[in-house]
C-alpha cells in the first residue's frame, strides 16, 4: 500500500499534517493522480473551492455551465482515457443536477467520482437552505455513495471512492461532504485503497468453464462473437483480436463496444441491435455458438428475448456475476476480466477459418449495402443525408477521430458509418440514451486525449439541451469540432411517429435558432452548409482547423434510419426499409 503524507507548502513536510477537510480533499485528489476536475461552486462546497484556488497550479478546475455538463465531461474524459473522471457540485440543486450523469455513468459502467457539498451536520434533516438528501436520491444510480460528516473520515472514504469507481465493473461513486467536515481539521495521511472486505471486484476465472468454452468453440460450425464495452474496460482488445483471428470467428459489436477492433478488420462484421447491421442481427439466429464478451444483452441489442439465439449455445464472458442469466441464459458462464479469461482461453482454441460462414455475412452485407448503405453514404437524392456527412468526416479525419455522439438518428448513423482504427474512440450514451451528452462529453474527451481529433456529432434537439457548454469551449479554447446534423426535428422520435403512430408528429417539429450566430456569439468559428457541393470542403476546413469549430449541416428533414428492429420484434425480423 502506498502511503502519502500531504505536502503542505508552508509547513514542515514530515509531520502528519493538521489541515482542514477541504484541503484534505484536494490532497486526496492529487494522491489519486487527478489533475483535472469539472464542477460548479455554491455555498455548501465553498471551502473546497477556496482550496482549489490555492492549488490551481496542480489541479485544474473547469467551470461547466451546468452541473450535468460536469458529469458528462467527466464521463467523456474517463471513456477516452480509462482514468476516473471527477465532477464536483454544491448541495441541493447542484447535487440534483448531477443525477442524469450519474445514471448515465452507472448504466454505461463509467468510472467517475462526484463530490458534493452538504449542509453542516447539525442542520441535516432540518430542510436547511439547499439541503437535499443526495445520498438517498443517488443510491439507485451509483455503484457506491457515502456521506462524510467528520473531517477525519475524508482520506479513507476518498480512497475507497476511487478504488470502487475504477475496480471491477467500473461505475460512479458519490461522496457527499457536510460543510463542517470541510472546515474542521484532521491529521492527514493518505493510503490508497486496495481492498474492501465485502467487495469482490473481479471474480476468479475458473479453468473448467474456460475449457468448456474452448470445447464449444472447437466444435462449432457457425461460431459468432458479439462483444461489448467490457472488452474496452478490461483492456482486452488484443486478446479478442487474437481469438477471432485464431478461431476464424466473425465478430460484431454493441455500440458501447465499437472501436475495440478496427472497423477495417476482415472479421469485424459490424453492429448488432435495433439499428445495427443486417447480417449481424439476422445471423444471431443462425449461428450455432454465440460468444458474448463483455456485453449485457440490452433489449436494444436482443429485440425479443423469446426468439433471441435460441438455436445457439451461449457462452457469456462477464465480470459481473449479476449479469449471468439476467436476460439470456448462458450454457457456459466465464466469469472474470475479459483480458484474463480470453488470454486463458486462447491456448485451448484450435485454428479455424469458417469460410462458408463468413460468406453468409458478406451476402447479407451486400443486400444491406444495396438497399440501405449506398443510399445513406452516396445518396443521389438532392437532400443531404447524415450518412454522407459521417463518411466525409471519416475521409477528412482519416478514420482517426474520436467520435462523440448524442442520442437519436445521428447517433445511430454515426455508430453505423464512423470508421475507427483505435480503441476508446466511440463515445456515446448507450444505456441511458441521454440527449445532451455529446457536447460536454466531447469537452472531456478532448481534455482526456488532447493529442486526438475529437468530433462531436449532435442532433439539433440534443444540442439545445447542453448548448451552454459552448461557454467552456470558448473560455478554455478547447479545440473540439462540433457537427450539428440539423433536420429541424426530434428525428428519432419523429421516425417512430411516422412508422408506428400514423405520422402524428406530436411535438417533434422544432423551429430552430441561427446556430451559427450562437456559436459566433461564443467567438467560435462557425459555418452552415446545406448543399452537397459545399459539404466536403466544409468538413475539410473543420478538421484542418486547430481551434474549436462549429459546423451545422442542414440534412434531409424526414429521413429514417434503417435497418430497424421494431421494438419487441425478433432480430430476425429486422427491416431493411
Amino acid at each position: 500500500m502506498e502511503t502519502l503524507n500531504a505536502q503542505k507548502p508552508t509547513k514542515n513536510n514530515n509531520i502528519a499534517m493538521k489541515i482542514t477537510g477541504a484541503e484534505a480533499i484536494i490532497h486526496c485528489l492529487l494522491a489519486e493522480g487527478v489533475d483535472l476536475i469539472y464542477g460548479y461552486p455554491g455555498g455548501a462546497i465553498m471551502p473546497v473551492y477556496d482550496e482549489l484556488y490555492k492549488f490551481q497550479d496542480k489541479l485544474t478546475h473547469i467551470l461547466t455551465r451546468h452541473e450535468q455538463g460536469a458529469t458528462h465531461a467527466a464521463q467523456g474524459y474517463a471513456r477516452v482515457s480509462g482514468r476516473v473522471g471527477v465532477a464536483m457540485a454544491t448541495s441541493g440543486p447542484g447535487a440534483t443536477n448531477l443525477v442524469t450523469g450519474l445514471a448515465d455513468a452507472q448504466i454505461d459502467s463509467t468510472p467517475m467520482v462526484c463530490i458534493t457539498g452538504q449542509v453542516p451536520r447539525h442542520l441535516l434533516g432540518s430542510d436547511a437552505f439547499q439541503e437535499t438528501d443526495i445520498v438517498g436520491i443517488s443510491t439507485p444510480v451509483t455503484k457506491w455513495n457515502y456521506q462524510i460528516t467528520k473531517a477525519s473520515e475524508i482520506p479513507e472514504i476518498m480512497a475507497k471512492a476511487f478504488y470502487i469507481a475504477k475496480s471491477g465493473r467500473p461505475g460512479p461513486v458519490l461522496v457527499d461532504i457536510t460543510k463542517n467536515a470541510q472546515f474542521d481539521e484532521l491529521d492527514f495521511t493518505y493510503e490508497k485503497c486496495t481492498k474492501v472486505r465485502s467487495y469482490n471486484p473481479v471474480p476468479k476465472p475458473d479453468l473448467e468453464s474456460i475449457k468448456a468454452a474452448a470445447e464449444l468453440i472447437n466444435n462449432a460450425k457457425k461460431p459468432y462473437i458479439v462483444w461489448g464495452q467490457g472488452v474496452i474496460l478490461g483492456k482486452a482488445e488484443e486478446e479478442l483480436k487474437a481469438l477471432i483471428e485464431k478461431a476464424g470467428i466473425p465478430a460484431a459489436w454493441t455500440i458501447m463496444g465499437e472501436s475495440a477492433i478496427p472497423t477495417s478488420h476482415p472479421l469485424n462484421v459490424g453492429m448488432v441491435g435495433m439499428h445495427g447491421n443486417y447480417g449481424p442481427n439476422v445471423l444471431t439466429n443462425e449461428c450455432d455458438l454465440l460468444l458474448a464478451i463483455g456485453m449485457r444483452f440490452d433489449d436494444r441489442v436482443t429485440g425479443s428475448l423469446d426468439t433471441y439465439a435460441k438455436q445457439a449455445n451461449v457462452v457469456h464472458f462477464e465480470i459481473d456475476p449479476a449479469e449471468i442469466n439476467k436476460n439470456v441464459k448462458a450454457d457456459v458462464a466465464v466469469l472474470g476480466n475479459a483480458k484474463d479469461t480470453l488470454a486463458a482461453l486462447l491456448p485451448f482454441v484450435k485454428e479455424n477459418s469458417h469460410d462458408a460462414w463468413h460468406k453468409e455475412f458478406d451476402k447479407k452485407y451486400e443486400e444491406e449495402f444495396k438497399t440501405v448503405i449506398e443510399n445513406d453514404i452516396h445518396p443521389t437524392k438532392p437532400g443531404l443525408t447524415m450518412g454522407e456527412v459521417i463518411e466525409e468526416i471519416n475521409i477528412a479525419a482519416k478514420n482517426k477521430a474520436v467520435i462523440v455522439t448524442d442520442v437519436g438518428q445521428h447517433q445511430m448513423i454515426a455508430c453505423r458509418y464512423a470508421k475507427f482504427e483505435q480503441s476508446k474512440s466511440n463515445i456515446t450514451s448507450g444505456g441511458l440514451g441521454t440527449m445532451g451528452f455529446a457536447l460536454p462529453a466531447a469537452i472531456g474527451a478532448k481534455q482526456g486525449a488532447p493529442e486526438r481529433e475529437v468530433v462531436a456529432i449532435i442532433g439539433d434537439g440534443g444540442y439545445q439541451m447542453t448548448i451552454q457548454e459552448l461557454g467552456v469551449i470558448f473560455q478554455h479554447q478547447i479545440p473540439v469540432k462540433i457537427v450539428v446534423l440539423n433536420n429541424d426535428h426530434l428525428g428519432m422520435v419523429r421516425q417512430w411517429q411516422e412508422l408506428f403512430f400514423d405520422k402524428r408528429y406530436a411535438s417533434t417539429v422544432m423551429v430552430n435558432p441561427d446556430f451559427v450566430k450562437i456559436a459566433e456569439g461564443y467567438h467560435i468559428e462557425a459555418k452552415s452548409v446545406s448543399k452537397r457541393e459545399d459539404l466536403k470542403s466544409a468538413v475539410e476546413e473543420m478538421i484542418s482547423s486547430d481551434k474549436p469549430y462549429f459546423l451545422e449541416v442542414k440534412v434531409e428533414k424526414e429521413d429514417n434510419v434503417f435497418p430497424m428492429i421494431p421494438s419487441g420484434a425478433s432480430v430476425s425480423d429486422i427491416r431493411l426499409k
Partner: protein
Amino acid sequence: MENQWFTISVYSENNVGLLNRISGIFLKRHINIESLNVSKSEIEQVSKFTIVVFTTEDWTRKIVGQIEKQIEVIKAFYHTDDETIYQESALFKIASALLFDERQIQNIIKESNSQIVTVSRDFFVLAKTGRRHEIDEMHDALEPFGILQFVRSGRITVTKEAMPITQLLEESIK
C-alpha cells in the same frame, strides 16, 4: 414459473445507507417486501437482513445477484420455506376485563401456546412466536373480542441444511 415464498438472507457491513440501497433493488423490479428483519448475525460486526418475498425463483435469483453486487454486502442467499426453520413473533394487547369475562380467551391462550407477558389493571399482553399462519389464526380467534394493539415482527430464519455460512463469510471477507 410460479410465485413462491422465498427467504433472502443478506450478510452485510453495518452501514447507514444500505437498507435504502437494498430496498431500492426490490422497488426497481416492482416486488413487494413481505417481511423484513435486520439484526446482528453470528459473525461479529456483520449484520443480517432477512427478507421475505412472494415471487418466482427466477426473479429471486436475479434480485439476490443484484443485492450481492452492492459494495457493502458480503454474501446473499435465498431459500424456500422447506429449506428453513422460520418464525415470526407477535404481541397482542387486550383489555384485562376480557381475561375474566370471556372463558374462550383463556382457551385461546392455552391452545395457541402463547405467553402472557404482562398483566395490568387495564390490559394484558400476549406474546406468540410461530409461523405466520399460526399467528394469523390466533389473531382471527382474538379479533372478535377486540384487540387493542397488534404487532408482528419480520420473519427470522435459520437453514435446516448445515450451511457453513460462517466459514463461507469468513472466506469472502478474508
